[in-house]
């Protein structure tokens, strides 16, 4: 992962190691005991597992896939349950969903060792393999996301006024949105399930990575939609609803992350520790700190203060950007720390004792 790493100056300056170590010990309930762990047998510390082959393509796929899924689900909730005013959320959400979806197949194909064989993914339908299910989920979700966005475009008059858009506009978008949302939830969460169904200790020990990824999908998506709505000066009431949903999603995400760290314990070291190969500094600074806790606190503040007119743009945009950044770094540190985790022979062997 060297090519995707931050310059050292940046990451080193991010957070003092002592604070990160304290946080790591509190959240994981585990304090490293090098003296004892060095006694544990292994074969000269050669890795037990092979390192994952997944790199920046997968990190960005997880990010965009989460946005595509979350935007669709939020848009559908707004379309199905919202008032007339909320249609702007549905419209923005459906467009953003399709836009975020576009890079996904490209990234996934590029990630393959043999990109020209990407269609081999569609040879079989294997319930046991989250990647097989994910491929089918992505293909079917693309269909729904595409159809919904096209209907939206026809209704918005973007496609002109001839017979085809009129026909499309008459299609029942809300009916399409129901199975589409179910597939959206699948797309937003399966990536975490996929990582859990591996032998990498960090990813597989606790079983809540899917919950973290789906809540991150919702939080980043509501951040993206509200960012666009802030920039286009949408009504305050509509934004307020989105902000409350974002607040809940961030809360669920933080709870999930805490459960993840508790459940993973020692195997979470690559994610939270501060050794040179570990990713704790980035994690605590850009995921847990400025990516989750800070925007959540800011959001709490602005929800408590109420909706006075002038503050909404500035603070809202900052919160949205922070949440989006946190969502990206969550996926990035999780994948990079998985590489570190695969190389730790003693923790892998410890993880296999049960």
């Amino acid at each position, binding site marked *: 992962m060297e090519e995707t790493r931050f310059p050292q100056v940046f990451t080193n300056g991010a957070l003092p190691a002592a604070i990160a170590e304290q946080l790591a010990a509190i959240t994981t309930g585990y304090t490293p005991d090098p003296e004892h762990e060095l006694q544990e047998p292994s*074969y*000269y510390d*050669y*890795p*037990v*597992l*092979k390192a*994952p*082959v*997944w790199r920046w393509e997968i990190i960005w796929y997880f990010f965009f896939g989460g946005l595509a899924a979350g935007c669709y*689900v*939020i848009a559908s*909730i*707004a379309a199905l*349950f*919202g008032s007339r005013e909320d249609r702007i959320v549905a419209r923005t959400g459906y467009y953003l969903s399709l836009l975020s979806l576009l890079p996904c197949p490209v990234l996934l194909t590029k990630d393959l*060792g*043999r*990109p020209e*064989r*990407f269609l*081999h*993914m569609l*040879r*079989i339908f*294997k319930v*046991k*393999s*989250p*990647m*097989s299910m*994910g491929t089918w989920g992505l293909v079917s979700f693309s269909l729904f996301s595409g159809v919904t966005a096209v209907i939206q475009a026809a209704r918005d008059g973007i496609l002109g006024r001839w017979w085809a858009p009129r026909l499309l506009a008459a299609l029942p978008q809300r009916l399409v949105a129901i199975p589409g949302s179910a597939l959206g*939830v699948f797309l937003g*969460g*399966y990536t*975490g*399930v*996929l990582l*859990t*169904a*591996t032998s990498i200790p960090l990813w*597989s020990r606790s*079983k*809540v990575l*899917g919950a973290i*990824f*789906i*809540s991150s999908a919702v939080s980043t998506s509501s951040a993206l939609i509200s960012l666009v709505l802030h920039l286009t000066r949408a009504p305050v009431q509509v934004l307020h*609803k989105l902000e*409350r*949903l974002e607040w809940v*999603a961030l809360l*669920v995400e933080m709870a*999930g992350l805490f459960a993840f760290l508790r459940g993973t314990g020692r195997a979470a070291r690559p994610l939270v520790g501060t050794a040179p190969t570990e990713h704790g500094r980035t994690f605590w600074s850009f995921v847990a700190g400025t990516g989750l806790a800070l925007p959540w606190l800011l959001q709490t503040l602005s929800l408590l203060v109420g909706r006075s007119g002038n503050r909404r743009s500035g603070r809202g945009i900052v919160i949205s950007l922070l949440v989006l950044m946190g969502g990206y770094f969550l996926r990035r540190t999780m994948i990079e720390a*998985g590489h570190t985790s695969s190389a730790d022979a003693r923790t*892998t*062997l410890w*993880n*296999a004792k*049960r």
Partner: protein
Amino acid sequence: MAIEPTQRTTTQGSSLRSMVSLLVGNKEPPLAPQAAMGFFTDTSLCIGCKACEIACKQWNQLPASDPVWTGSSYDNTGQLSATTWRHVQFIEHIGRRDMEDNGVGGDKAGTSLAPTIYEQAHEQEYSRGDPRGRPDIPFTAPGTTLPFFNSDRWLMQSDVCKHCANAPCQEACPTGAIIRTEFDTVYVQQDICNGCGYCVVACPFGVIARDEYGDRAAHKCTLCYDRLKDGFEPACAKACPTDSIQFGEVEQLKAQARERLGILQERGVKEARLYGVDDNILEGGLNSFFLLLDEPEIYNLPQNPQRPSNNVIPASFWTIVAAAVMGLFGILFFRE
């Protein structure tokens, strides 16, 4: 795709099936199942000659990897990889043990496994296995004599794909490239694999790997599928000069392994144990199993790895719970 008239008559049963066959061709009938075949790698017989590594490379036409000086042992292969399907480990524990003075029980791994005729004749006089009790072997400081005569330990193991009964790589594979053959071995179809890399992280033994310098597809031991087809034993088993690598029907080999374990334990090698013979590992055991002379961790083998596919249901459950919570709040907020 042209379909022969004779084939068309066989697929008339279901219109859907015939349509599928028209598109992708007829599905080949599965091959007649044969007896499950596997390896029994008896590490107590391994002398670390690496003939298995070389035979494997030669038969399977795998490129040589540059030998590196690891600095920790005679192992210069390091690990199994996409182009190394047998890997001989050298576990050297020198000056390791001073605490067992009576020599009965405990770790006998490094000492002579088979009692000599002299020993057998004078069993009463000597606490077997402890060189310090033998008048014919002068006491020497640890690390200064040959491993055969002192307590220093030099274990060797020829590591290989375990051909798990429930293979995580096969369960993970989204293309169907990884299959079970008619010999119940796990095999990667090279024309199907698209190098997605999911098997690499699924394998709990770090066996299967993507060939980053070659065709970028996943590779691992095939248990010499081509040789099996022609009734030959795999190249490594054929080349092994001490029969440390044995090949045969899994059930028969497992009986052999248990018998061998009995012999070793009877002779005082209490630390000897089998790995992957019973059905504990990955809920079905391994078709390629081992006799080890110490705990599995010494050989970098996970004691009881979880089966990755078992995580799908709990992970999905928590995902749905999180989604339901957020969905309910979303509906609540937008309904107002």
